[in-house]
């Protein structure tokens, strides 16, 4: 008798367990799908927030003035026109400005790539007296705000003199402003924009490479420089791509040094600041009428101009996005 009751109880208990598990299962799967749905909405929504402003820029750049004041026009212009782009194109002197920017960005990023790789190698693979102090100084250069050294640097290049050598030879100090020289000199010595970060990246990379690789090359009789460029460099290519891409992009968008050193030469980032003024100038030349742009129209022009500035970057990003994202993962570079 007892055993029957017991077995019944056990059966009963098992039954409720199964039931509970079933109920839990449906609840569980419901919460899984619900969560997936919420997540999907959030992920897509943020995608929208991210891409929307950029897309909007493109729409606005082809709007006509009537579209701008038309309240029914939100995104797609009713009478699309390339008039804005044409106006901005000529006011910015786009082809020559683009060429200036391209030249400057490529020159500086190649320079920075070479110098930071060499310097990073020096810090990563050798032991010499004072290395740690010097490397601490590399880190410190990242903390010094560019504003702090802005004025002396400006004067430095305005009256450039290499330890009194140049004025001895030529009799006067030379003005390096409005040329690429300030950028080139600073890049070649690893002092350019965010170069402390690049040196840090290259040093981390070289430090983690196996010692045996180098030693084997030495045993085989390769010289130190040959070891560097035949053994070490080829395996450092991923880190070098990172440094190149970021220094190119940051030079492209930089206004700080460009404003400081290039007052007459226009690059895209500095041409952008004066675009409203340039357009009124241009209209004055063409028609002889002095116009003042309304804020809305003026902002439409600046918007179009800024689109022209970042379009090359967007193209670069589309082509090389894999390298960008991967290199951040690998090196922790921060924009």
């Amino acid at each position, binding site marked *: 008798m007892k055993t029957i009751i017991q077995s019944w109880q056990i059966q009963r208990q098992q039954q409720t367990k199964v039931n509970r598990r079933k109920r839990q299962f449906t609840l569980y799967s419901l919460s899984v799908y619900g969560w997936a749905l919420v*997540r999907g909405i*959030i*992920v897509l929504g*943020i*995608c929208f*927030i991210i*891409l929307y*402003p950029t897309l909007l820029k493109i729409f*606005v750049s082809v709007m006509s003035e009537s579209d701008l004041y038309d309240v029914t026009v939100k995104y797609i212009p009713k009478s699309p026109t390339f008039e804005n782009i044409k106006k901005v194109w000529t006011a910015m002197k786009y082809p020559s400005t683009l060429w200036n920017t391209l030249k400057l960005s490529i020159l500086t990023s190649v320079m920075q790539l070479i*110098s930071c790789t060499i*310097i990073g190698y*020096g810090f990563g693979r*050798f*032991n*010499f007296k004072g*290395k740690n102090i*010097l490397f601490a100084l*590399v880190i410190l*250069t*990242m*903390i*010094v*705000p*560019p*504003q*702090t050294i*802005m*004025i*002396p*640097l400006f004067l*430095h290049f305005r009256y450039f003199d290499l330890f009194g050598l140049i004025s001895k030879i030529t009799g006067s100090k030379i003005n390096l402003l409005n040329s690429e020289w300030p950028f080139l*000199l*600073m890049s*070649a*010595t*690893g*002092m350019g924009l965010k170069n402390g970060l690049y040196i840090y990246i290259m040093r981390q990379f070289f430090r983690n490479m196996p010692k045996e690789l180098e030693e084997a090359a*030495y045993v085989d009789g390769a010289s*130190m420089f040959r070891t560097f460029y035949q053994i070490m460099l080829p395996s450092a290519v991923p880190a070098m791509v990172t440094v190149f891409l970021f220094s190119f*992009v940051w030079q492209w*968008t930089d*206004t*700080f040094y460009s404003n400081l050193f290039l007052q007459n030469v226009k690059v895209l980032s500095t041409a*952008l600041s004066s675009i409203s003024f340039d357009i009124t100038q241009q209209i004055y030349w063409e028609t002889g009428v002095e116009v003042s742009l309304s804020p809305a129209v003026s*902002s439409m022009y*600046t*918007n179009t*101009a800024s*689109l022209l*500035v*970042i379009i090359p*970057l967007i193209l670069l*990003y589309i082509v090389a*996005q894999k390298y960008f*994202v991967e290199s*951040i*993962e690998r090196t*922790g570079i*921060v*924009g």
Partner: protein
Amino acid sequence: MKYYERKNYTGLLYISPWIFGFLLFKLYPFVMSLVYSFTEFNILDKPKFIGFDNYIYMFTRDKLFFPALKNTLAYVFMTVPMKLAFALFIAVLLNLKLKNINIFRTAYYLPSIFGGSVAVSILWRFLFMKEGIINKFIGFFGIKPVDWLGNPDIALFTVSLLAVWQFGSSMVIFLAALKQIPNELYEAAMVDGASGIRRFFSITLPMISPVMFFNLVMQTINAFQEFTGPYVITNGGPMNATYVYSIHVYDNAFRYFRMGYSSALSWILFLLIMIFTALLFKSSSYWTYYEDGGK
């Protein structure tokens, strides 16, 4: 032995461009700016030594110094936590096994590529104008238009949203760190019956704390130096609500040509960043967790 000695001198040779550049383009300007900070200097005439007058003026009579300082601190304390929290949130979302994660990652990183450039700042001004798209958008839900850039109470917030929008690089770094966390930790916690939130605070956060620290330091330094955003979007206005410290430095140098005073201002900025970075480093031993004991 001889081989290694030679090898070490070669090391010096490799970094010699850096030493040269450091002396010429960093240390010399750095020292000179300290020298200028004790002078009255308008670039055209020779600097005139005036002792601590610049610093005394700054703390006693400059009406814009304290507002600018306050704005920069407010900007830093607003931007950095918002940006990092948002970046971490998105990273956690993307880390949950999701299809086509790479497409989203690529899209999310896009704004960061433009950096703190003028182009993006112009875009921001355009979006948040009174007749701008944001107001049109919230009008859709029946919300009255907000004067995002004209209202002194929220203008700085609007400007700092731009930095938050560029959360991509922090997010990618977080994402890389999240992928490194061994799954066994979560499994063990689940067996012990820890909830999702508990798992996040007891496993995820400690495991990514070194990366959090790195992001925190970099973003703090960047935020202190922020110039382009406030300068282009609102030009320091309205009523100096977005007049951050670096605009003050820039204006004194290139608008009023008070190079000496501007140098003094920039030295205070440098010291401020130094102190904050040092504090972050000091505090890090209390809240960052390294598996190998931090060696």
